[in-house]
């Protein structure tokens, strides 16, 4: 187990920059998610850490030791592929034993390790099955066991749950997290599913067009994103655009929005934007004076989702989402006039 340091990493394919000066550190034992839209360079970053090819520029250190010139097979890294990449000509046991075999681990020791890994992923009964006789979730577990059994310094997972259906994916999220905790291994997990990133990881790095846009704990990035991209990519977002005026944002209709202090604030006169999450917006009652930001709008649509209700409110031609656990919302009628209230401290200035 080890930390991973990535410094100023760049990688181009032809003239196309797949990774552009990315720096990020992964602490020992942490669970990291690399999140970003398709084509943003997540796989490229993961593969460079694993050692599939070398960067054009930059440094990678694993456990404090520079690995730029260490070939893949010597890096001692556990990798789980999206396609699982199980060896079709071997059964479950042999698949998992592969990494130990090629290292020359004696048979009995290897068998013991393999059985332990099988137990960890709860597949002990299936050790003689072939990959094509397994379900997607089981293949996933075999791939995980195979990567973990070699006791790697880092575990890399490239969209490991992408091929599973939703229910199974939720199960595997819990499972993966449990296994990671049990083994205590530094884990870097690539996903384009923001919910997955939020629920599973200790830290999230958001990539966009080959650049690391933002990095931090899930809660921080969700509540106080620094960039518009992170704000909209991670969760639902209401974004207001306007002109900065002494730390407040002046909207087109002249309304001034109070905002939380932050680097996203521009100098007076500069255009800018800020974020308010749907669950931070209230629909204010009639006698509800209060402070903070207030906007008048009309309800256009209400969406009941069991434990959650989303109300769409039209404000100056712009749709604002209000989300509450409160089902009283359902009593409000479409077209009725409402006042939206939200505090300035939850109104986050964003860099665009």
């Amino acid at each position: 187990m080890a930390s991973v340091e990535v410094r100023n990493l760049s990688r181009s394919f032809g003239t196309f920059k797949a990774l552009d000066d990315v720096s990020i550190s992964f602490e020992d034992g942490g669970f990291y998610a690399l999140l970003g839209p398709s084509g943003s360079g997540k796989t490229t970053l993961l593969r460079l850490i694993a050692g599939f090819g070398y960067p054009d520029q930059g440094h990678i250190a694993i456990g404090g030791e520079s690995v730029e010139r260490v070939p893949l097979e010597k890096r001692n890294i556990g990798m789980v592929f999206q396609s699982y990449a199980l060896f079709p000509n071997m059964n479950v046991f042999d698949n998992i034993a592969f990494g130990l075999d090629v290292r020359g681990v004696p048979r009995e020791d290897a068998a013991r390790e393999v059985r332990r890994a099988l137990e960890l992923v709860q597949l002990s009964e299936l050790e003689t099955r072939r990959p094509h006789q397994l379900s997607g979730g089981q293949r996933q577990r075999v791939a995980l066991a195979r990567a973990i059994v070699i006791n790697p310094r880092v575990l890399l997972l490239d969209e490991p749950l992408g091929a599973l259906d939703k229910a199974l994916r939720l199960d595997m999220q819990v499972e993966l997290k449990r296994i990671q905790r049990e083994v205590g291994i530094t884990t870097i997990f690539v996903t384009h599913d923001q919910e997955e990133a939020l629920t599973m990881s200790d830290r999230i790095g958001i990539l966009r067009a080959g650049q690391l846009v933002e990095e931090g704990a899930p809660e921080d990035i969700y509540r106080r994103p620094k960039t518009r991209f992170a704000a909209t990519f991670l969760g639902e977002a209401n974004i207001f655009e306007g002109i900065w005026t002494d730390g407040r944002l002046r909207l087109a209709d002249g309304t001034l929005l109070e905002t939380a202090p932050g680097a996203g604030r521009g100098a007076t006169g500069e255009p800018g934007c800020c974020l308010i999450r749907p669950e931070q917006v209230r629909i204010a009652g009639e006698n509800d004076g209060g402070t903070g930001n207030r906007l008048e709008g009309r309800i256009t649509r209400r969406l009941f989702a069991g434990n959650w209700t989303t109300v769409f409110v039209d404000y100056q031609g712009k749709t604002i989402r209000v989300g509450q656990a409160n089902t009283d919302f359902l009593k409000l009628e479409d077209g009725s006039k409402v006042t939206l209230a939200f505090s300035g401290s939850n109104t986050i200035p964003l860099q665009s």
Partner: protein
Amino acid sequence: MSPLTRLLEVVGRLFVGLLLAFLYLPIVIMGLMSFNASPFYMLPIEWSTTWYVQLAGNAQLVDASLYSLKIALATALIATTLGTAASLALFRYEFKGKKILQALLLPPIAIPWLITGTAMLVFFFGVGIGRGLHALILGHVALALPYVIIVNNARLKTFAPELEEAARSLGANQWQVTRRVTLPWIAPSVVAGALFAFAVSFDQFVVSYFLATPGQTTLPVEIYAAIRKGFTPEINAVSTIIIVLSMALMLFTARFYKFGGND
């Protein structure tokens, strides 16, 4: 079913029947005649194995058969090894001129053997390789290589490159990856390639005719010479043996291909 489709079906069946007849009737007749005691193909057939007995006593034909077998085995071994290695290289690496190299594999299959044979003869004499066993094997390997590579390439198209990557990430070196992950997957095409190579060599007439030394020659060349001297039903016998063996080999390949299917 409309009358038209029924008619088409009848015509289709007839066509397939005729096709099979043209393909197999001569062979069947030859096989039957190899068991006919009459050297003049007199009917009705008088069953006898006399031509097979005579064949066994014909040192020249037996020698030529063994010589052919030796060359075909050597060709299969060498061409399969080199060809499989080449296929793996084409699969794994990107390099300058790869496309051209791959395209260059096809023409040798289409070029008439007469031309290839003449070219080889001229070339081998020019560079001092000359004729004989080594020249025959060299020539046959050259003829067989494209088949081996093409068959393996087709199989490798179904192989997921991540499997090699996964094996390497688990600490396997190049040789371990090849032996334990890649070769098991392409085993059917390696076998098929070897059979192709064997067949190309064993059936080879033109190139062998040019490259064999007069004293010692291969079976097809020997058969040709024998026919020129005067046809004897021994030729039917030896041909029947070859046909039975090659059919068995081909059926075996077909089965192996199926067994080696996807999993």
